[in-house]
């Protein structure tokens, strides 16, 4: 819920947020100042979004992550100190996140999101509602209309389907430690997914496999920047959000906004 009373922007905040107030205005900044946000997942992408929201000056940000800091985590994101191996990832990220902007209340929560009761989510502010992810992925590609639209559909959409299926089947993302087996499985899933949608398997060629194995910092930065700005738009109720998927191809430099879901 947005705060009932009109948040006051102090002189200190005015000085710090000056350059963004000059862009989106004082009212937008006040709405941000009254918003509480929940961020689930503190990998590379999560850390970028956390940074962007904390710098924007929200009222509070809760970092929710049940994962532990692995050896790779420290290289993957900049909020976790190199000494934090074995700790909960949300808690390990807390100090640096808080230091980004002491005027934001940052909390760390080590629980699994599935374990949270419904009313846990009520303390956070509503975001714009889109169709569910499930609906977006359940498009019927056999229809003529869909087939016609296929040419302009970013191939990343199907890549997304493949990765989600891998995650469901294996309970984890592809791991460089099991590169050969996971590559094999990805290839198989690709074939299955495309077949089930009655699509040709060469729509997504084998190259994609090598990109599935970890987050890349610059890609997290790009996607985290776009995602962060979407959240700012929603909270400040200013400017239309992108509808409803954003796909970024780091090799080509294409960043596409496309709509998937019921018409």
């Amino acid at each position, binding site marked *: 819920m947005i705060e009932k009373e009109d948040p006051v922007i102090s002189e200190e905040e005015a000085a710090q947020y000056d350059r963004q107030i000059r*862009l989106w205005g004082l009212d937008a900044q006040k709405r941000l100042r009254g918003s509480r946000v929940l961020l689930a997942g503190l990998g590379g992408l999560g850390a970028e979004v956390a940074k*962007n929201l904390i710098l924007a000056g929200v009222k509070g940000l809760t970092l929710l992550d049940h994962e532990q800091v692995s050896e790779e985590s420290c290289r993957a994101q900049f909020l976790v100190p190199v000494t934090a191996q074995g700790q909960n990832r949300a808690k390990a990220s807390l100090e640096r996140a808080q230091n980004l902007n002491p005027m934001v209340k940052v909390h760390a929560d080590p629980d699994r999101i599935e374990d949270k009761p419904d009313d846990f989510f009520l303390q956070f502010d509503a975001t714009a509602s889109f169709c569910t992810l499930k609906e977006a992925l359940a498009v019927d590609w056999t229809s003529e209309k869909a087939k016609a639209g296929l040419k302009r559909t970013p191939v990343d959409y199907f890549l997304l389907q493949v990765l989600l299926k891998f995650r469901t089947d294996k309970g984890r993302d592809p791991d460089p430690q099991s590169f050969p087996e996971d590559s094999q499985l990805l290839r198989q899933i690709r074939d299955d997914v495309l077949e089930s949608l009655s699509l040709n398997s060469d729509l997504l060629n084998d190259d994609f496999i090598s990109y599935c194995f970890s987050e890349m910092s610059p890609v997290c930065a790009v996607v985290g920047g776009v995602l962060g700005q979407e959240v700012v738009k929603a909270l400040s109720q200013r400017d239309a959000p992108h509808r409803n998927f954003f796909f970024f191809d780091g090799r080509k430099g*294409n960043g596409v906004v496309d709509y998937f879901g019921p018409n």
Partner: protein
Amino acid sequence: MVQLVGSLRKELADSISTCKVLVVGAGGIGCELLKNLVLTGFKNIEVIDLDTIDVSNLNRQFLFQKKHVGKSKAQVAKESALQFCPSANITAYHDSIMNPEYNVEFFRKFMLVMNALDNRAARNHVNRMCLAADIPLIESGTAGYLGQVTVIKKGMTECYECQPKPAQKTFPGCTIRNTPSEPIHCIVWAKYLFNQLFGEEDADQEVSPDTADPEAAWNPEETAARATASDKDGDIKRVSTKEWARSTGYDSVKLFNKLFKDDIMYLLTMDKLWKKRKAPTPLDWHQLENSECPKEGTPASGLKDQQVLDVWGYCQLFQHSVETLRSQLQEKGEGAELVWDKDDPPAMDFVTAAANLRMHIFSMNMKSRFDVKSMAGNIIPAIATTNAVIAGLIVLEGLKILSGELESCRTIFLNKCPNLRKKLLVPCVLDPPSANCYVCASKPEVTVKLNVHKTMVLTLQDKIVKERFGMVAPDVQIEDGKGTILISSEEGETEGNNNKFLSDFGIRNGSRLQADDFLQDYTLLINVLHVEDLERDVEFEVVGEAPDKAPPPQTNQEEVNSITNGNKDSAQPSTSSKAPSEDDDIMIVDSDEEDGAASSSAAAAATGGTKRKHSDAETGETSTKRPRTDQSAGDNNDDDDIIALD
């Protein structure tokens, strides 16, 4: 089977961990870039920035905290980045990249140079150094929600200066001094006034009424008569403004009455000016003091800076700021000069007060300190997310370069909304070098129009060779068979030539000058085209370019999103002809998308538009688009990073 290190092929990963890269600038883009480089595995990074940290940086330059305000950006950025990766080897320089220490040999150490700059002079310089050293350069810029990245490689792509950038807009002297019609004119006047009173006096920054204004004369003979009369009279023009102010002890009431009463009354005597314009109304200090209304309660919500005071409020602000600045000057001692800085409160107060008083005199609605600061300080709004996206793209281009895949490099634009092809990020193929580029062509040459009898050597050096053609330490000789040296980069050597005219050296129509910058390894041949008359206030013109003038005030629906709430002001240009305090460039290249360019007409018809809209310098927001062929000087320069091409 390809070997991976993270998501990178082994060869690339090895290259990244061993190569040396240079980051020029540790601000909005620089902080994000440093973080990305370190996390991607770059191990040898050098970063340079001449600036120190300000509180207004903290909304986006996330390597800095409140406790770091006042410290060196490069140094603190290095320390913070080392926290993420203690094994990285980072060298920080708190210095200007234009320092001769950073010569071609310095640049050759690096496999890649990445700019994260906010001004054109430095970009031009680094462009030339990278051409001289033949090192790939990644150039970038942001303003508000918009951003852009491009790659520059000698011989393969356009260099930064291949396409002429619109020059910074200036206003005619008589508009500033006699007939202001927009708030910006009053703000420019107030900044000039600051310099005349407290700073470095500049002959191009006169504030007193311009008696030689051709518009004031009923006939041409009168203009000449007025001009000579003012010279003979030994009037205020003779005594410098600073000397006069000093003689009054910087008495704020005396200053007020001269600037806002006496000078205005003088302007009123130039009656022709007011035939078709609303005449100014002079102010009287004592009258205002006595008729002061009891103050109403100031509204609670909103920022103090966003309030607009009444006239007496600005009188008081004027008085307070003059007194503070006077003390500052006294403290500094004999012959001291202050430099205007938008973040120095009394300096900003002074300009706010003086500009508003003048606006009121000329029947314009007064503006809040917040708005005046935007215009006076050339502030470009900036946020973390835009810089984050652009910095991510920079590294991705860098990886292509290090993989030897230069053909896959692109210019990439970040839009605010998806274009007709649904693209938020629009990659475009890089253009080859321009054959006539006055920087990267094999034997660069330009033609400059000027009056050889009226152009001084100093003007050639400062305004033409340095400011316009971007040389830092030029040597200029005449191609007269004798190699006569006009300007030497050695300090003091040719000082005696400064106030002489070009014609004194036998320079005439068709003469050729050779200008060199040793540091930039750059030679430019300048052909002199003599003309008797140029436009008013124009000292020279580069042939092949449109003259840089301020556009007429916008009267139609060209709306620009405002930076405060709901207040719609038209775009404002730079307030100075020299590099302003926070100066910047907006790069707007019409995007020809790689998968088939949209034609100009198709783009013009589109509302979303595949072509980038023209970005407003002050707000970073986009106004209605300009067609590619439009030669008029665009809004540009100002804080932060967007490079403008029109």
